[in-house]
């Protein structure tokens, strides 16, 4: 048994931590959030030049052949810095889909410039009624003489306003919740009939509601085989789930650190808060939640390439735990900070908000517990 990182992974971790320390103070982050795109393009190019964007992809796709553990290392450490650059929607979702399904031409036009940091591509798949069900898809694509016509509505499309291209899931056959009959399309963001309603999300991100109205796209927009998009979507969401769980573990570790620090400084009743046994036990519980989450994360990263059932069980366990521990550590950290915890000025609240959205993203604890039970 060896859970330690390889030398390369250790270096990767160090370089991300260094970046966060030097380039990503809270003041910097606030500036990035307030900008039009909601993140910093220079940072994104830096991620590209440091090889982080290409990590999950094979060498022939222009990547670095990284595996799930590398994704874990990247996301856990980006989590510590509360990074808002669109690594998950662009790299882990869209990148994964392009790598799995893209033709040579599509990879050249989309995946390669994405890996180098020139292009941002997001994935639009959530619909108002779909909740966490990936096969629930009402958006329709119908074949036309020279391609396809898209009609429908997608919710919470992360970083859509900063994206050059969208990957859109649409039904080409079957009923609302059938797995078969969903196809994936590349849609240029400037195409006629594509409209976005942009907004900020509670965790500091940007997202959009996407309306597709009689959107005409060429034949070569189709990714992979017609009607067969579901398993690719499912795989991409799995990788993104691992990613945000790693991010959550990074956040939880950081929140525990900040809470310990705060209670060692703050005095009430002529004592440091950290000296009250009632509070010590609660910090121990937070620490245990973190350790349990980290253990399932490591387990899951190790099983991502296993047969489907093992992988699915590992992911369901992990996301279930992240939901529980995210709530526990999130709420307790705020409580232990007292009134200061609810101020916008303290960093802890910003970590709390990201952790809170992660609880829902790609399915909450209930959803993953049901998944687990069905496996």
């Amino acid at each position: 048994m060896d859970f330690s990182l390889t030398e390369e992974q250790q270096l990767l971790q160090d370089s991300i931590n260094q970046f966060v320390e030097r380039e990503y103070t809270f003041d910097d982050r606030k500036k990035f959030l307030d900008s039009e795109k909601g993140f910093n393009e220079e940072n994104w190019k830096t991620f590209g030049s440091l090889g982080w964007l290409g990590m999950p992809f094979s060498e022939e796709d222009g990547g670095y052949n990284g595996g799930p553990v590398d994704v874990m290392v990247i996301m856990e450490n980006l989590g510590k810095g509360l990074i808002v650059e669109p690594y998950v929607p662009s790299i882990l979702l869209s990148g994964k889909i392009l790598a799995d399904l893209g033709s040579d031409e599509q990879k050249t036009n989309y995946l390669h410039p994405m890996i180098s940091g020139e292009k941002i591509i997001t994935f639009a798949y959530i619909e108002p009624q779909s909740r966490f069900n990936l096969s629930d898809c009402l958006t329709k694509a119908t074949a036309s003489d020279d391609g396809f016509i898209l009609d429908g509505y997608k919710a919470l499309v992360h970083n859509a306003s900063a994206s050059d291209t969208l990957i859109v899931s649409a039904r080409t056959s079957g009923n609302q919740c059938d797995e078969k009959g969903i196809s994936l399309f590349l849609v240029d963001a400037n195409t006629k009939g594509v409209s976005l309603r942009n907004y900020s999300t509670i965790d500091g991100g940007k997202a959009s509601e996407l309306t597709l109205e009689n959107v005409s796209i060429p034949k070569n927009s189709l990714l992979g085989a017609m009607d067969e998009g579901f398993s690719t979507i499912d795989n991409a969401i799995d990788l993104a789930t691992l990613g945000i769980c790693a991010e959550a573990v990074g956040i939880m570790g950081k929140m525990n650190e900040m809470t310990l620090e705060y209670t060692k400084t703050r005095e009430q009743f002529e004592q440091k808060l950290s000296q009250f046994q009632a509070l010590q036990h609660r910090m121990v519980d937070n620490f245990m939640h973190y350790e349990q989450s980290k253990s399932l994360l490591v387990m899951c990263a190790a099983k991502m390439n296993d047969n489907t059932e093992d992988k699915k069980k590992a992911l369901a366990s992990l996301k279930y735990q992240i939901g529980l521990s995210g709530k526990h550590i999130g709420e307790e950290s705020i409580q232990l900070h007292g009134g200061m915890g609810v101020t916008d000025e303290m960093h802890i609240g910003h970590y709390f908000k990201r952790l809170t959205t992660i609880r829902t993203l790609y399915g909450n604890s209930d959803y993953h517990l049901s998944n687990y039970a069905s496996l």
Partner: protein
Amino acid sequence: MYNDVVYFALNYRGVLMNLSFSKEDQEFQQEVRTFIENNYPSEIKEKQDQGIPLSKEDTIKWHKILNDKGWLAVNWPEELGGTGWTITQKHIFQNELAAANTPTLMPFGVNMCGPVIYTFGSDEQKEFHLPKILNGDIWWCQGYSEPGSGSDLASLKTKAEKKGDVYVVNGAKTWTTLAQHADWIFCLVRTDGSGKKQEGISFLLIDMKTPGVEVKPIITIDGTHEVNMVYFDNVEVPVSNLVGEEGFGWSIAKFLLAHERTGIAGIPSLKRELDRLRDITTQIQVGEGSLKDDAMFMSKLDKLEIKLTAAEYTELRTLAAMSAGGHPGPESSILKILGTDLQQELSDLFVEAVGYYAHPFMTEEDLASNESRIGPDFAAPVMPHYLNYRKVSIYGGSNEIQRNVIAKAVLGL
């Protein structure tokens, strides 16, 4: 469902049980309902029902409507403008207000400063302040917590030095709710630093317009401006604004803590909100059905309802003990913990219910604007509410402090 029949009076030892209202109480209930129906302004109701933040004017308007009817200072002595209601009637009244989702009135004047003034104040203070509190002419805020004094309130440092016929006040107060609207602030200040820390504290009324008072906003994690820092820089306050004797402030603070605390659990609002969430589950589309078909979610709602019922009956037992002549003592600490726990859990269930539509960040301006909201209307306020409600287990004596009170005063530890 909201109960028409409430359970009075329960003997808190559990011997006698009379679980229905008397005929008079039923008539009273009807009177309250009719009054609300006829007098609750529709424009305020609409805002409340849509989760749009109320303006200062909205709150004052409702305050004045209740006062005109003589139903504002429910707990004040009758001769000063109180209602003379029985505890059952007060209970019915609060339930009906909550069921109708009327605005929460600012407690600082009518529930806090008012009782302090009529109990401990000078004739001059009574004459000046009590009518203005009733009329809603003065908006009060509370100056208790300080940056270094949260749970350990008695360690407060804001200093009031007597110089001739004024106190010169220097220091800072924090978490001052809606101080940006306030005309006056009641403060705990230190008039003596020599003895035991509780003994040198005094209760002072300060006009916010006095030179040297400065209010600075604190923005909270839900993006709103509800609380403030209030700074005092050589603020001269007439000695006549001292309530009670010098050094009597801590006793007044303790009086306030024990006073009017039974409503603190917010049970009636919790019942209304829980019913609303049940209703919302039928409106949240999940695939071809609704969230109501999700057994795991619905069982969480049921668990919460059972917990709420337990809290409700705990409150009723406290009320019954009070109507039998007892005092609400440390029991109010139980209710504070139970109530705030439920408020937070319910706010989390709302977040869970609306799924991804809890993620768009809706500012107060967004909520108030005419533009359509992102996702269903009911979804927009849930995340700000969840985040904002982290405060309820922290304010009013944190739940840790409440547990200390129970350990000490109830369990004798």
